Each structure stands twice: as C-alpha cells, then as structure tokens.
C-alpha cells in the first residue's frame, strides 16, 4: 500500500531515538552519526530493525544532519545511499507483519537563515534539494522533515522536497516550553503555512517530553486538516554517573502519547531518549484503537512567522498605506530605494492596530520584482504581521511568495482566464489566501447577480487546481458613488450573497467608494459599517482614518465581539480631539536655547521636533529652519560629544529628533525642487559582516549634516560598492567592519575602489579597526566615531570651508 493511502485510515507508528543508542554503541562526542551508515552499518541496521520489530511503520534513515554544508557532495551521496540501504535491509529482516515504510530523514541545516543568521533562503532550499534528490535516487517511500525550530527553514526544506520529488512529505517542528518555535511561530501559524504548501502531515517532535508537548499537540489537532504527528522526547536528559538518563519512563511515555492518540493524533513515535521499548509499549497501548478520522477544519487563515490570523466573525483590518498610488512621498521613497520609510509606514500601521499589511510597491520606473522581494524580506525582518502581496506582476508575485515566511494573502486573481492560469498555480505551490475580484473579460458586471456568477466560476476553476474555497476571499469591488450612485448597492448585495450562499469570506478596498467626494472619511466609515453588516470579513483600509477605526471598534462592541467593550473604551481615548496638544505638551523654552525647536533637538524629543517644525513651516522658510534652528542645535550636541560632555545615546537622540524635523521639511517639499545637498556619500558594511549599528549611526549623522547618503546595507560585495561609487561618482565612500575576520573584505573593497574609482576618498570605521590598521589596508581616513566621519566628510566635500 502506498503511504498516503495507509495514512488515511491508520494510526501510523514512527520510530524512536537513535542518537542515544549510537552513543551507547560507541559514537564519540563530535563524531558525525551519519558516517556510521558507512562505517557501522550493522549497528544502524540493528537499530532500524529493532524499531520495525517494535511496531514502527516508518523508520527514518540515519540522515538527520546529512546535508552539503556538513559533507562534500560525493560523501553525502554515499552516506544517503548507505542510509537507505541500511533501512531497507532492516525492513527485509524484520519479522513484523505491518506496513513498513522508509522515510528520508531531514533535520535542520545547523544554520540560521538570514536575516537572523547567514544562510540565504535560496541557499537553504538548495542545501535541502541535494539531500532530497539523493533520497529519491536511492528509493525512499516518503520524506520526513523534523526537529526544525525555525519556520523559514522549515519552508525552505518543504519547498525543496516538493520541487525535487513527488513523494509524500510529513513535517514536524521542535517547539519550546512556551509552545512556540525558537524563532517565534505558534502551532497555528505552522499549520497555516505547511498545509498551504501541501504537507501530508504536520506535527511536533523533540525538545520536550509528551506532557509538555500536550498543549502544542492539542492546538495542532484543533487547527490542522491533515494528520497530526507527535514524536516527543523521553523527557529531559539527566546525568547519572556520567551516563545520559531521560526522566520519563516507558510507561509514562506511552500513557501520555496514547491519551493524545485518543484525541486524534495519528502519527506517533519518539525522539531523543526513546528506545524500541518505548515504541513497543506505545504500540501495544494504541494499536487496537480506532483512528480518529481527519476532518477538514474549514479555517480561512493567513500567517506570519509568529502567528496566524483567522477570518471569522471579527473584522480583519488590512492596512493599505504601503502603496505609492496617490502618495508623492511614498513614490519618492521607492525611487530612492528608501526602505526605511516603507518600513516606518508598516510599523505605524501596526501601532494603529491593523492585522495584515498590504504591500504594493509597483511603479513604472522601478524593477518591481526586486523591489517587492526586498520589501517583503525587510518587512518580515522587523514586523510580525502577515502580509498581503499586492501586485499584477506575476514574476514579482512569485518571488515575493517564495520568500514570504508564512502563508500570505495574495492580491489578486480575477475571473479572467489568463489571471486564473497565472495565479492559481502559485497559490497551490506556495500556499496563500487569494483575493478574487468579481470581474472577468467582460469587465465588472453592474448587477450583484453578475458578480456572484463570476465568483462561482472562479471557485469552479480553483477547484480544478486543488484550491479549496476556504483559500479564496472575494472582493466584490467598491467603486465610487460619485460616478454611479447605485455603485454601493450592487457591491453590498453581491457581498451578502457570496457570504451567505457561497459560504465564502469577503474583502473590500473600502476607500474607493468615496473617490471624488469631499470629506471622504465620513462616507468610508459609514460604508464600512454597512459592508460589515452585509457580511464583510476584511477591509483594505487606511488605519489613520479616525472614522474607519471608530466604525471598527464600535462594530465589534455592538456585535458582542468586544468583551466589556474594553477595546472600544481603550480606543475611545485616542479619538479625543487633540488640537492644542502641541502647545500644551511643550514645556516653556529653557532660556539657554534660542528656540523651542532647538531645545527639542538638543534634548532628543523626536515627536516634538517634528511637530514644532510643522508649525514653523507655516511662517518660516524651510531653509531658514534648517540653517537657523536645526544645524545650530546639532552643532551644540556634536561639540558636546567631541568634548565628552554628551554621550553617544544622547547624540543619537538628537540626531533622530533632527531627522524627524528634516522628514517634515522633506514631505513639505516633496515634488518641489530639492534644496541643494552637499554631495553623495556611499556607505556599507563590508562583505561577510552583518553588523550595521555603527554604519546606521554614521548614516543618520551624515544625513543630518545635509549629505546625500546611499546606504548599501550590510554584507555588501566589493563589486557592488565599486559599481555604485562609479555610477554616482561619489567623492567619498564609508566602510564599516566589526570583525577581524571581515577586515580582509574591507581591504579588498579598498583595492577595488582604488582601481575603479581612483578619485574617491575612503573613510573606514568599526570596532576592530585602529588608525594603524586603517593605514595598513590603504584607507584615507580612520574615523573613531560618527562625528569624526561627519567632520571628514565636510573636509572632503566642502573642502574644509565649514
């Protein structure tokens, strides 16, 4: 019988621990157990056979760490070949009568993925792909991905398995005592992502004993529509007379796991510290039980690398602000590759309470594939909200979905054949909840009936791709009532039918309804309320709109979704009009500073500096504010820092306050001619180095002092730095390195710059550098801190005119 069929109607027994048995057999500390497939095949076969004899239906090959990061390709192939042969031999020798499958075991790579570690996502996919290909070549029945403590790495492994085999894949993660993966994912988040990508079973193994994993197993059972795996440790290891002893006995273990089998766990085994005895006992206590049937939980869900967001009674808010449409400042940020600005839009919306962020970075003049991929990666490095990937560029969509760490929302597909043929395969491969617009080749039907008909067709086609209706959310298209005063009625009525009769979730871009009207917020807020009442599940909306947020909180309170109206009450405070807040909050100017703004910058009051600047702009010329207020304040702080009366954090607070003032000025001048800048400086942390705090500090200060800074980020190859310096004909390049091991990369970069951009001066800094070191590697200047970099930049670019 094939594994998938067997899994449908049986409790499936995995094997138990192997490491402890190998140690007992003489494996030395630091020795790779995978090599024992070749050197001690008899020991490995005996262990596998003992598990089959104990009742295991699946034996995992001894290939936990068999990957090309640890072994050269030739050796890797030999190891996997031998490992599969050993398992097969054990299967032949075992007397057990049940079904016996061999699973290619894939453990973590041993590296953490970027941005937390140094392994690139695609490199991780390649690492796992090699292992998968060898497993397929030597004939395993299925693949087990296990003990993964990071959702991103899990995704890389599953993607590798899917792209290089047609075998069943079961996936098990290592959860900690807090019930989450080391990098933060909850069981619900893992289910959302892994089910979306087509894992055949999902579960938990290692790290803890069965009792501590009970909560995780129960959450998995509640959320998963595929069989749940449980493969716990025999408790925690203790040292008794120099031997490793685990603290959960055979009986305790099998009792605990059996109890969870009764609740519905369908694939069971043991991890560290368990032996064939544990499996035999578990088998004897559960093999007579009727397997609990697997039910489709019909959950419409998206996830981030930490949590899942389910669609249901309570409305889901999707922040629309990461989008250049109609936003000059945002367009400017995209053109300047100013990712920080985009990130701050994300963080601000999160603070306003949205659940999901829409991400649209499409602009005619930029490489959208690259930009969208980068933006998704940058956002998911710092914001734990699920993302809605919003693009009509299919290549950009695929790249973004591939890199996305979770189950994304996909915006969008529509009833056109071409659209469905492009989008549905991506939904199937990467998982996702896809927004389906009720329009087709004939445009948007005027009637509700017409839109519902398109929805039905979309569902039918999706079904052919194996996409369930729970993964489709319909947008019945809000169009402005200023053009057609029946527009809202058609939208709402089709919404209602789709929700009630097709049983699907719905979403709307709410703000479109008021296009062309004055006081749009009022119309949007009311339309939002009507739509919610007609069954709207999610809204793509502006969270800065007070009317929209008021509707959201009031609706939840009225619908009984907000216990004790607590959230409504909490939100109400923020809606109180705060016209006088700036004047009231600002303490009287201290006499030693010439103005309030100077005081705010010197003291590092970020918000206040921004607000004061905004007020000043109504009466004072922007350049005057810069020259008479901000720069003098920065100089006072900078001088203080050099004299050591001001500490680094203070210097930075002032710099940030100044930046917030500059940001206001920049926004007011957006689109207008730019004020003259002092010249372009290219900065980067050198190749191999991932530390960028120092570089970011230098960037901030340089910008404060009016320099245009092109920040290439961290871990930047010399060629990129040289290319950029040439392209911009930069008079100055700043390089940062924190580690002794990356100083050679700095030296190499300097060499390349000397060759390709001989006009360019180079300033270096970083923890390990000294003046002597800087001279040795050929830099023009060693800057001991950020202020010294600024002074040097002024010297080079202004010719010391300051």
């Amino acid at each position, binding site marked *: 019988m094939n594994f998938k069929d067997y899994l449908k109607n049986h409790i499936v027994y995995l094997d138990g621990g192997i490491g402890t048995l190998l*140690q007992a057999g003489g494996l030395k*500390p*630091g020795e790779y157990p995978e090599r024992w497939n070749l050197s001690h095949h008899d020991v490995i076969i005996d262990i596998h056979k003992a598990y089959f004899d104990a009742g295991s239906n699946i034996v995992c090959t001894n290939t936990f760490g068999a990957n090309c990061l640890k072994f050269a390709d030739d050796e890797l192939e030999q190891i996997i070949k031998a490992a599969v042969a050993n398992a097969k031999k054990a299967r032949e020798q075992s007397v057990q009568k049940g079904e016996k499958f061999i699973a290619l075991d894939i*453990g*973590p790579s*041993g*590296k*953490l993925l970027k*941005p*937390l*570690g*140094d392994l690139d996502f695609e490199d991780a996919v390649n690492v796992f792909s090699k292992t998968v290909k060898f497993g397929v070549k030597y004939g395993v029945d299925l693949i087990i991905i296990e*003990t993964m*403590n990071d959702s991103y790495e899990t995704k890389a492994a599953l993607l590798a398995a899917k792209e290089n085999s047609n075998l069943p894949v079961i996936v098990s993660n*290592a959860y*900690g*005592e*807090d019930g989450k993966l*080391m*990098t*933060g994912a909850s069981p619900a988040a893992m289910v959302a992502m892994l089910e979306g990508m087509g894992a055949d079973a999902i579960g938990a193994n*290692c790290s803890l004993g069965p009792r501590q994993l009970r909560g995780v197993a129960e959450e998995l059972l509640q959320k998963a529509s595929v069989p749940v795996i449980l493969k716990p440790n025999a408790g*925690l*290891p*203790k*040292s008794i007379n*120099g*031997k*490793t002893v685990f603290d959960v006995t055979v009986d305790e273990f099998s009792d605990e796991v059996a109890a969870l089998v009764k609740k519905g766990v369908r694939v069971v085994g043991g991890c560290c510290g368990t032996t064939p005895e544990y499996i035999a006992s578990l088998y004897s206590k559960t093999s007579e039980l009727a397997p609990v049937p697997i039910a489709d939980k019909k959950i419409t869900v998206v996830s981030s690398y930490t949590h899942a967001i389910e669609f249901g009674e309570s409305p889901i808010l999707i922040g629309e602000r990461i989008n250049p449409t109609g936003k000059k400042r945002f367009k400017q940020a995209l053109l300047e590759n100013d*990712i*920080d600005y985009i*990130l*701050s839009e994300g*963080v601000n919306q999160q603070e306003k309470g949205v659940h999901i962020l829409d991400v649209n970075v499409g602009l005619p003049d930029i490489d959208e594939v690259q930009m969208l991929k980068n933006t998704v990666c*940058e956002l998911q*490095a*710092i*914001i734990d909200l699920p993302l809605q990937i919003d693009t009509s560029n299919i290549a950009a969509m695929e790249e973004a979905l591939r890199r996305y760490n979770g189950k994304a929302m996909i915006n969008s597909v529509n009833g056109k054949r071409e659209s469905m043929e492009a989008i549905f395969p991506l939904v199937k491969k990467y998982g996702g909840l896809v927004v389906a617009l009720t329009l087709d080749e004939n445009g948007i039907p005027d009637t509700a009936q017409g839109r519902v008909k398109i929805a039905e067709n979309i569902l039918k086609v999706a079904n052919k791709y194996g996409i369930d209706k729970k993964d489709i959310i319909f947008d019945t298209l809000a169009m402005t009532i200023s053009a057609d005063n029946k527009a809202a009625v058609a939208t709402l009525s089709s919404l209602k039918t789709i929700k009630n009769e097709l049983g699907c979730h719905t979403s709307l871009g709410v703000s479109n309804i008021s296009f062309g009207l004055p006081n749009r917020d009022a119309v949007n807020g009311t339309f939002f309320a009507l739509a919610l009442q007609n069954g709207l599940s999610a809204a793509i909306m502006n969270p800065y709109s007070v009317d929209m947020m008021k509707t959201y909180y009031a609706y939840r309170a009225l619908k009984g979704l907000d216990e004790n109206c607590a959230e409504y009450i909490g939100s109400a405070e923020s809606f109180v009009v705060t016209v006088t807040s700036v004047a009231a909050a600002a303490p009287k100017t201290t006499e030693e500073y010439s103005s309030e703004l100077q005081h705010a910058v010197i*003291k590092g*009051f*970020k918000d206040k500096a921004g607000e004061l600047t905004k007020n000043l702009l109504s009466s004072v010329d922007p350049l005057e504010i810069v020259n008479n207020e901000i720069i003098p304040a920065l100089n006072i702080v900078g001088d203080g820092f050099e004299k050591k009366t001001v*500490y*680094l*954090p*203070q210097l*930075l*607070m002032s*710099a*940030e306050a100044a930046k917030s003032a500059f940001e206001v000025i920049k926004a007011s001048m957006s689109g207008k001619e730019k004020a003259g800048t002092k010249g372009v400086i290219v900065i980067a942390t050198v190749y*191999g*180095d*991932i530390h*960028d*705090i120092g570089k*970011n*500090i230098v960037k*901030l200060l340089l910008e404060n002092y009016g320099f245009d800074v092109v920040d290439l980020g961290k871990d930047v190859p010399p060629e990129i730095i040289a290319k950029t310096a040439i392209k911009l004909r930069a008079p100055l390049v700043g390089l940062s390195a924190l*580690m002794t*091991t*990356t100083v050679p990369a700095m030296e190499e970069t300097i060499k390349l710059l000397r060759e390709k951009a001989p006009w360019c001066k180079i300033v270096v800094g970083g923890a390990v550098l000294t003046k002597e070191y800087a001279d040795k590697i050929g830099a023009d200047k060693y800057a001991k801190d950020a202020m010294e970099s600024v002074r040097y930049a002024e010297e080079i670019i202004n010719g010391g005119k300051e």
Partner: protein
Amino acid sequence: MNSVILSKTYIEPPFCEKEILRYAGCRGEREEISVLLKECIDEVKDKLAYKVCYRELSIKTVGVTCDFEVFSVHSEKLARNLKGCEKVILFAATVGVEIDRLIGKYGRLSPTKALLFQAIGAERIEALCDAFCADIKKEYNTGLEPRFSPGYGDLPLSAQKNIFAVLDPERRIGLTLNSSLLMSPSKSVTAFVGLGNTEKTSSNKCSLCEKTDCTLRGV
C-alpha cells in the same frame, strides 16, 4: 569522562541599568536616556529566552596545548587560565533571537534604541552567564576560573568549530555558527570555565583583561 550534554533554562535575571548604560557608552546618568532605556526594557521584558547547554570535560595542559580529550586547542592564555584544573565546564549560552529582531528593527527606525537594545543584549547574556556560573559553582561546590571564550587573548575563533561539534547547541538551544565564526543569535556566549581552583573571579571582571584602552573598561 562525563559524556552528557545537559541543558538549563533560566528565568529572567534582573536588569542592571547601570551596566546597560556602560555598554551604551554612558558614564553618567542622563534623564532623557533613562526614560528611553526604561521604554526599551519594557519592550524586551519577558520576550527573551535564557538557555544554556553544557558538558563537563577533562583538561590536561601541556605547554600551550589544552587537551580536553575530545579535542584540543593551542592557547597560551587559556592554558594559563586553566592551569591546575582537572575539569572544565564547556558551555554555550544564548538569550535567543528576539533581541536580534529588536536590534534589527530599531536599526531601521531609531538608532538610539538600536544602540540601547544592543547594550541590553550584552548585559543580558552576561547576566545569564553569571547565573549559570553561580549555579555550577554551587553544584560542584568549588571555585571557578574566570570564563574564557574563543577570541579572548590568543584563543582563536576557530575553536568555535570544536565547541559546536561537542555541545550540539544548534539542537539544544537553537544556537548556530556562521561561516564567519560568529554566532546567531548574536547575543550568545561559548566559554570554558575551569573547575576546582582557588577563586580568582574578581568583582571587577575588566581587571582581568589586557585591553586597557577599551572604551567599555569599567573603572
């Protein structure tokens, strides 16, 4: 030789603001910084994991060679540090990925906070190591040598490879080694602690260090 790798998880040690400010480059109190620091501490509180894995190794020092039986390293300074010890505890400790996320996040949004989280991370991992060593001291009822990590003195960073091979910290505590030989999560420590000698640990750990021009050096 004891071949068992053990793990410990600690509850959050109390935050020492003074120490954090020292790491952040502040030598005195400044009200506006203290306010910001409190904000940062509130944000990071209860978010970190405090995990250690360790094993006991035997040690024989011959000249500059430290032979731990499962591997050996050449380091005059470490040999001096472990002189007279028969056993060492080799450990790996980490406060997890959340602090790196915060440092990364504020690196993009607020360099001041990034600096403070950086300093908090340094203080956290030291506090964890202190808690762990205090435990070991109690369990073994013995004096401890000051902990000694790759990169100290002449002990090369490449010793990390040996340490990772015998401690399995990837699986035990989620600690990984980058190709640059630095660790991820970044707020992590691996170290040798010699057992059974007379107490040398000074209340001022900086006094043991030879880098006298260090900006972080405590007075």
